[in-house]
């Protein structure tokens, strides 16, 4: 998923679901990648109209189907 791209969340790995559920990230939700820091740094994604920053390791556990 590249910068500025949007996509639908396909799946979230096991116990991470608990952690991000309250923040609004969930399966079937549309998310947009706003920015990405260099050297495997964190991303900022927007869900609905809020921004969340997450580390690469966390992001890798969230599978997103990119929309073209």
């Amino acid at each position, binding site marked *: 998923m590249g910068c500025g791209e949007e996509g639908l969340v396909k799946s979230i790995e096991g116990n991470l*679901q*608990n*952690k*991000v*559920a309250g*923040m609004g990230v*969930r*399966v079937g939700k549309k998310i947009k990648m*706003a*920015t*990405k*820091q*260099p*050297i*495997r*740094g*964190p991303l*900022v994604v927007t869900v609905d*109209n*809020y*921004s*969340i*920053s*997450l*580390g*690469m*390791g*966390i992001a890798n556990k969230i599978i997103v189907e990119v929309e073209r």
Partner: protein
Amino acid sequence: MKLAIDERWNLIDKIAKQVVKYGTYRSTLKDAIEEITVKPLTGIPIAIAVLYGFWAFFGAFAGFFTDGFFVKFFDNHWLPWLQGVFPGKGGWLYYILVGDPTASNCFEAFGALTSGLFVAIGVVLPAIIAFYLFLTILEDSGYLPRLAVLIDTVLHKIGLHGFAIVPMILSLGCNVPAVAATRALETKKQRFMMAVLLAIFIPCGAQLGIMLEIIPQYVGFVMIYLFAGFFIFGFILNKLIPGKSPEILLDVPPYQMPIGRNVRGKLWIRVKGFFTVAIPFVLLGVIIVNIMYLTGFLGWLANVLEPVLCGWFGVPKETVGPLIAAFLRKDLAVAQLSTINMTIYQLVTSVILVSLYFPCVATFAMLIREGKEEGWRGVLQYLFGSLATLTAVVFLWGGLIHLVWIILGVV
């Protein structure tokens, strides 16, 4: 009945569909600022500019009031007046409260009512106000979480994550609330590391203010040296301490215009906190050090510690007085250092030592309190963990600066 996560969200979607209508949303200036402050290419230069602006404002504001007004007032009016009217010149009470009767400025006199008041009100108060004014505006605007995102990559290398920047910045004002702020970090390992690192390496606003007054040309160097220590020992602690360092997962709030009323309110709470806690401690510190000096205890201790102080750190044995004062207040300790006769390099070393060697009592008490949050084992871990780190840091990082001077041939 409890719902599963998916059920709960489905329910919310259903409710939202019925009650919320999203109108067309226009991109605003806010969104543009939003974007350039988190995109690395523009965000990092902006972050550097903001932090530099913070520093420049701090120095300019504090300097303006301290040099422009308080130094003149205290040295030209307050000190001579007090030296004149205070009874019992040469007596012990005079020594404790007014200090050296021949002193011509408030740094040298070292009485509770002269140096004590001058340090607290003349030097530190403007610094504290300047610091919190800028910090409060940064806080209320919502910039800090963006800074956290930008710096995450770096802090992640030492097992912390970007949000640790919040306690770090708070710490530059006062270590006590900063230690409390570590609670917003996720794991015990991160909380412990952060609390100990900031208590040791990050000088507080009071100390910064006084450093700017005494060694203005060297403050930058001292800061860089301390921050380098922060990262090096952070790296080591990260390897030594078991536990997890999860990645950043942080909500980034929208920007908001700071509201004057809230900025004033918070500034007032913080300055009031400074008045009620710091000023009694500064005065008490002067009194205790003076009593220790009068009773000869300080002289004795200086001789006992001479091999360590002179041999290992390369500073005069008289620095033992300021090191004692540093238990109570770091600002007071640095002010006291300026009255000891030594080279500028020794002064820089001893300022660094004062920063490193022991957090002030208020911070240390807070550290133990945070340990207690984790249960009794936590208290012991925080207590012995911080003392062990402290000892290692003081001797290694404090000794290294002496080595640097030896290599540079300036000792």
